[in-house]
């Protein structure tokens, strides 16, 4: 099956980040942007042009489901919810990311065993 692991790192990371944000609660696209900015202390800002394609891809793969709901301000917005497969996927990605970042961190720290 199609799997673009090892392709575009940014894209892969964005998927993981979106899944992580959605793990807390179902959220609409705008809310996801806001939460990413807030939780990363403004270090990360998401390009909307890549956020929505990422969301649709996650939906198509069955990791995220979506439904129209009303916001607290009584506005209709599409809410995204993480699925069981999505949680599994997030766990796998997280593990991989932690290995990768520990490895990269060790190299950059210049520690020799």
């Amino acid at each position: 099956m199609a799997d673009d692991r090892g392709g575009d790192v940014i894209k892969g990371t964005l998927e993981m980040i979106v899944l992580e944000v959605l793990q807390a609660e179902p959220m609409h696209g705008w809310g996801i942007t806001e939460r990413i900015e807030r939780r990363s202390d403004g270090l990360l800002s998401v390009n909307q042009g890549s956020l929505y394609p990422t969301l649709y891809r996650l939906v198509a793969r069955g990791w995220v489901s979506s439904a129209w709901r009303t916001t607290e301000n009584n506005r209709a917005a599409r809410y995204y919810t993480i699925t069981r497969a999505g949680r599994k996927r997030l766990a796998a990605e997280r593990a991989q990311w932690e290995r990768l970042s520990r490895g990269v961190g060790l190299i950059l720290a210049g520690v020799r065993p």
Partner: protein
Amino acid sequence: MSVRAWWARVRGTLRRRDALDREMEREMAFHVEMATKRNVERGMPPDVAARQAKLSFGSVGAAAEAGREAHRALIVENAAADVRFAVRALRRAPSFALATLSTMALGIGASTAIFAVVDAVLLRPLPVPQPADFTYLGWVWDKGDAFPALTSLQYQFVRDHGRAFTAVAAYGTRDARVGTVPNASTTPVRGLEVSGDFFRTIGFTPRLGRAFDATELKAGDASVIILDDAVWRTRFGADPDIVGQRLFLDREARTVVGVMPANFFFPPAVGDTGFLVPVAVHVNPTDEGHNTQAIARLRHGTSDFARDAEIGALSQAFRAAYPALAGAHEAFRLYTHREAYAGGIRLTLWVLFGAVSLLLLIACANTATLLLVRASSRQREIAVRAAIGAGPARILQQLLTEGLVLAAISAVLGAVLGALGLRAFLAAAPATLPGGLAPEFDARILVFAVAVCVLTGLVFGLAAAVPSFRWRLASGLLGTARGTTGGGTRTREVLVLVETASAVVLLAGATVLAASFARLMRVDPGFETDAVIAVKLGPLPDDYDAARRAQLAGRILERVRRLPGVAHAATAPNLPLERGMNFPVDTPEHPELGLGAVELRFVSPDYFATLGVPLAGRDFAASDGAGGEPVAIVNTTFAKRFWGEAPAIGRTIQIGHFKDRWLSDRLEHQTRVIGVAGDMREIGLDRAPRATVVVPWTQGFDDRQPVLLVRGEMSQVAKSVRAEVLGEDPRLIPTVEPLTAAVSRNVAEPRFRALLIGTFAASALLLAAIGIYGVIAAVVEERRREIGVRLSLGATGAVVALGVVGRCLLSVSAGAAVGLAAFWVTRRSLASMLYDTSPGDPRLLAVALAALALVAVFAAWVPARRAAHLDPVTTLRLD
């Protein structure tokens, strides 16, 4: 799929796409709106805030397109990847792919070919307008015999009094040359001679010109003709101005009044009907021969009950009007086309239909078995894929794709096999398929068979896949699933049972039919066929008048007798085993023993010597001429019937005398028996010889063209005989063939049946072998670890092999028992096709079972041997 349905689907897809776009736009508008709101909260003026939000979002259109792209690409990508994956997986398992493909292709091919024939001959309605109202007319005699034809008097009676019908007609066939000059030198064409209300009965009218009018039909007008579409096209270049032109039918000048439409179909003609000419039915009340083929159209909407009542009343009226001609229980009868023409082959076709259904069942069971086996061998693969995040739907989609790829390939193979099979069937079939009902290779039938196979594949493929990611996810990965008997085992055993049972039914049927055929071939026909050739002179040019016709055969006979290499030569009215003439015969001392249907033959001297038939008494001589004393030779059966063991030579018989009445004044004389000949099986190898009387041809009254029988050196004689016939008249078109060919025509149908069912049985055996092999191979694969442990603990290979094979052979035995029982129940359906063979003959059933046992043991032995030779170390180290 119809164009409309297709369009609806396309539109549905487009609509869904529209909806998707609208949702995306709404979602992005919401996003921009929220961004604007935040900018305002941060103190921007509203217009700047909105512009800023839009800028930071970028182009809505571009984002929507990117989103759409992601959506679309994934679906296509998945499907394409699935197909690629399926093909790769199948290539990695070539034996599985080959077994499944050949199974499905064989099942689809064989069943579509036979279904096409059954559909054409037995199921499809007759291609005439309103076929339900179309009927043939026949007659039932006192003893219940019936025949689909009438006497001329009965025909006239139905025409004048049959109130159940809106139209009644009669027809016959005629072979004639059609051309623009008299006696054109073209091959004769078969045409129809029609009378009565033919066109209204048949329901077709000419596409060009007109039908024959009532006067022409009544008078049998010999100056008009209607051409068939095919003849009009091939011989007259589809000339649109053909109507009104003059052409010649043999020597008769006729004006074309019409051309029939291309879909004109009239049943009894084998091949094309080239032309129609009107002919008058001459009613001769003393002619009791059922020689008028009559058809009728029932009043539309008549209930069966009302129709039967009217036919009953009509029969009663006929009996009342002609009490001398109809017994108390004789009656008119309606025949459907199939009853009238497909009689002989119907049973054969139903049996073939049953056989091919069994084959299709085996193919389905086999496909299912193979898929189950494959699924179980893929537990681990599926478990791994589920573990790395493939959802159930995704895995199902993948398995489904694999099934569809298999189905697509086997559908193509099956269609090719089916088309070839149908062609082979039609080539091998005896010429008893009713004319005009030519089977066509039909897409509907193909779709049906493919659908059956695909459905089987999908149902069992999925059934096998579902449990694999319910409970095998964990155990499959851990490898502990090995020693267990999974849910698939029971299903597999049932499938093996079904396959074996069906194969046994087919095998038993094939064995019985083959044995019957072998016995039939060993029957002594009572005459020698080996050194005899048969010569038919073909249609005579019609400048031959009666006198010339009578002399022709005699002159050729004289020429042939003088040829080197010819031992004997004679003429006969027909070849042995071809239909001859029946006549009533009795003796003056025993008229009560008289037979209504004695075989009567008019032959030349040397007839018995030519056929190698023993003869006591004297043969006919040249002196037994037209003016001499009437003499005859009878066969042993005839002599036994009338005189028992007493000598027959010198006795007197009465040809044409029956129930104290002479059939005609002309026949009113006594005939002396001068010889007794051996019995010949003349009406069929499988039928006992009938009482026969043979009369010198010079004293006979048969004006049909006789055939020549020549005994001698085959290779030398065949060519020179043909030369002599052409030497007599170069316009003759003789057919020269060995008499063995006529015999083999006579057994064509039993041979065909035995051959076809034999082929099915062989295929069934092969499929069953594949199924059994597959199951045992899977068992070995699943229990590899257990087997390794047992081997390493000291179990011998033989014990292990037996353990593996045991359960499967148990299912095979159970299947054989079920199959035998099923055959036993249905064996009666074969009885009427058998010659001197009991369908329940235990020796034959034992042969069938032995064949199955042999194949089953061999199919099991190969994987069992593998199990016995497993290396325990490798096996255990595998995990």
